[in-house]
């Protein structure tokens, strides 16, 4: 840790110091080091009560800071501040930048294109499949995928990016050590290894809902464009979109059926002028990315293409053709293809192993995109 870094760490972890307050102090003192050596009279104007000032002055006893810092180190958590060399450049361009960030894994490359893939937590299978597909395709084209490591679209986007061997970074609402939601535990572990996890809060801060709008501003800040996969008319996703618009980012949206309430938000964005995306090349071409291959699937006859490409056996073909993206029950499939149950089970499981369909819930099957 550099000489100055310690003072930054000290300041940002001090009790009663919000980002705004630290900003005001730095406006006066310029460097955290000077704040550390400032007298209580000099600092008094920043605190409302004497107690607050007293607590802040006690914080100058470095014992506790050192302990906190060591704990961070033991958890492989790194810290960088506004003046660090590796501080993401994109943050400096936003109106309300974080003064310090905690991260695991690596930080995104400033020179690479980054796209945030966001959407509702409570999403449909269509949304999940699309998030994963776009995550994977962007990952394959060396585009960095940013999202919030939440349930639903976020998790799928990260997972997709990892599948496509791309770099992906998750921005957390709570402290850097908080795994929330729990079911994404394995994803967290993998992101640490192959991507990055970043948070403005140090260890131990619980993921309160009030922290999430702040987090959304960082998601928007880290990317060049925001892709909204699926969102209802009213959704937290629009906080990110609004922040993104304030920061001058490009907004992309995947359209849905107009009857579909879960896609109403996306459709409204398109109506308001967001770029409509039906294919990953829509994004790549927008940024004039070179080396974009034009072998992307045409979603209109996606199933036919898969059947042709995989050269499926006749029964597999029949079973595959009657499946959709929304789950279908085993008995209904048997009835539709009119084959013996054993035959149908066999080809369904075969298709699962081939990776072109998934068993969504017990005995319910749906096709897989990408």
């Amino acid at each position: 840790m550099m000489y100055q870094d310690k003072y930054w760490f000290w300041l940002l972890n001090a009790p009663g110091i919000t980002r705004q307050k630290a900003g005001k102090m730095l406006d006066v003192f310029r460097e955290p080091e000077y704040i550390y050596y400032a007298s209580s009279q000099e600092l008094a104007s920043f605190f409302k009560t004497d107690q607050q000032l007293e607590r802040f002055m006690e914080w100058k006893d470095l014992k506790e800071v050192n302990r906190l810092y060591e704990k961070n180190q033991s958890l492989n958590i790194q810290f960088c501040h506004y003046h660090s060399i590796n501080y993401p450049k994109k943050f400096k361009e936003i109106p309300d930048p974080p003064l310090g960030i905690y991260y695991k894994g690596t930080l995104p490359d400033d020179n690479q294109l980054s796209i945030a893939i966001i959407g509702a937590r409570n999403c449909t299978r269509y949304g999940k499949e699309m998030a994963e597909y776009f995550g994977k395709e962007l990952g394959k084209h060396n585009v960095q995928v940013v999202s919030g490591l939440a349930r639903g679209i976020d998790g799928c986007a990260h997972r997709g990016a990892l599948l496509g061997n791309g770099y992906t970074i998750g921005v957390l609402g709570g402290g850097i050590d908080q795994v929330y939601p729990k079911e994404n535990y394995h994803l967290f572990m993998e992101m640490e290894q192959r991507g990055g996890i970043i948070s403005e809060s140090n260890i131990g801060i619980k993921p309160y809902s009030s922290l999430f709008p702040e987090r959304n501003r960082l998601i928007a800040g880290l990317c060049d464009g925001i892709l909204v996969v699926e969102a209802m008319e009213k959704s937290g996703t629009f906080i990110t979109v609004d922040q993104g618009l304030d920061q001058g980012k490009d907004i992309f949206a995947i359209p849905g059926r107009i009857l579909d309430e879960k896609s109403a938000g996306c459709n409204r964005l398109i109506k308001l002028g967001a770029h409509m995306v039906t294919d990953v090349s829509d994004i790549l071409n927008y940024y004039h990315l070179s080396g974009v291959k034009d072998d992307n699937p045409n979603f209109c006859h996606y199933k036919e293409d898969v059947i042709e490409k995989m050269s499926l056996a006749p029964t597999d073909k029949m079973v595959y053709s009657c499946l959709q993206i929304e789950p279908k029950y085993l008995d209904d499939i048997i009835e539709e293809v009119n084959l013996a149950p054993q035959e149908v089970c066999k080809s369904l499981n075969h298709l699962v192993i081939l990776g072109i369909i998934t068993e969504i819930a017990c005995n319910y099957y749906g096709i897989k995109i990408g």
Partner: protein
Amino acid sequence: MYSKVLSCTLHGVEGRLITVECDVSDGLPMFNMVGFLASEVRESSDRVRTAVKNSGYRMKPQRVTINLSPADIRKEGAIFDLPISIALLSAFGYIPADNLKSTLIIGELSLNGDIRPVKGILPIVDFAKKNNINTVILPFDNRTEGVIVPGLTVYAAKTLKEVVNHLMESKLMKPVEYIDSFVDNMDCFDVDFADVKGQQIIKRAMEIAVSGMHNILMIGPPGAGKSMIAKRIPTIMPSLTYEESIEITKIYSVNGLIDSNTGLLVKRPFRTPHHSITAASLIGGGKVPKPGEISLSHNGVLFLDEFLEFNKNTIEMMRQPMEDGEITISRLYGNYTFPCNFMLVAAMNPCPCGYFPDQSKCHCTSNEIHHYLNKISYPMLDRIDMSVAIKKMEYHDLYQSKKQETSKEIKQRVLKAIHMQNNRFANLPIHFNSQIPDNLLNRWCYLGKKEEQLRKDIFEKYSMSARGMNKLMKVARTIADLDESEEITTDHIWEALSFRMMNFHNGGDFI
């Protein structure tokens, strides 16, 4: 004068011989009863004296001592009223002692001398038969249950007087005739799998489950017909053998679930305890332990509807008895063992509202589903081999004219598979594929090269645990048996895969 009468008490579902001794001697008029008696047995002195008086027999005022031996077994119930009164009358000289030899007497008395029915007749007569006691006198209302065991002379008495007269002048009553109702009533079920329209996959799953005695979990929305299907499982199970039937009837007899019309139980039990059930009534218990639901479903089906609503601790109590096929309950007065070999059929909803993954109906968030699934008892899931989804029937399914397969037809195939297993496991302590121990799996579930490759693919694709894989192999073994094939082929494994036990952990492959 001294006299002795044979009687019997119950210990679990087995009988124990009790000798009722009576001595009448000179002294102050007293009526003493000894021999580790529960209060209801002690009270019987009043019933006996009054019943004897009201039946017209006079007792001289003398010192009466009654002993129920052996003294280290606690005696409970009103079963000893009749033997005590007979011993008393014999001691007073009304009945010759020779007439009481090799006769087992049981029954409760009413004050006017009528004999009232008691519980647990079958284990008692079975005990008599096994111990070469060839005559049994029991209450008239228990006669159907009393003649289940052949080779015994059973007298059914309505009043005390009848019994005394019979024993005095010997053989005034006629023995109850033995009617072999066993074969006649067998397989007469009032339900049939043909009543279930469509639902092919469930029927197939049940066929496999019954063939290998695999415990199975049904997942489906409310109103899909989970209970309807479960109720029909006994109709495709192999018919009860006489020994099995006796085992079940004994348990029901001890619980007092056999009325005067039913004799031997000829149908496999089907029990559906409500999810508010306590541990004691599920596995058995009480001050004097009574068999619980798991024992009442011995040789049959235990159906746990709304599996997740059961108390987790209650459900987990079943683990050890399920493994051993019997449950031992320890109480102050001894250990009681009840058999409990049953097939577990559990049913649950996939999410709080029940309609997941039907997006048009289910509005549960994934959080809610996780929370809901977390109620599952994981150790219990380890003992369930198969899971199958069930869907609410559509109109065209319900009112289709297509002929449905009857239980009889399904049963034929099940019997074939069971026959295969009987041959395979001859002279071994296991009987069904579900009981194959994991370390012996390779011996009976041998795989060829192609199958081995498939197993590897499945293991990787479904990220299966070793335990999950073993279950899959056992189910594949059963499917091969249904196919009458000694080798497990890829087709069998493919089908077994559709019925594999879901991995619910953290939503697992469920969400």
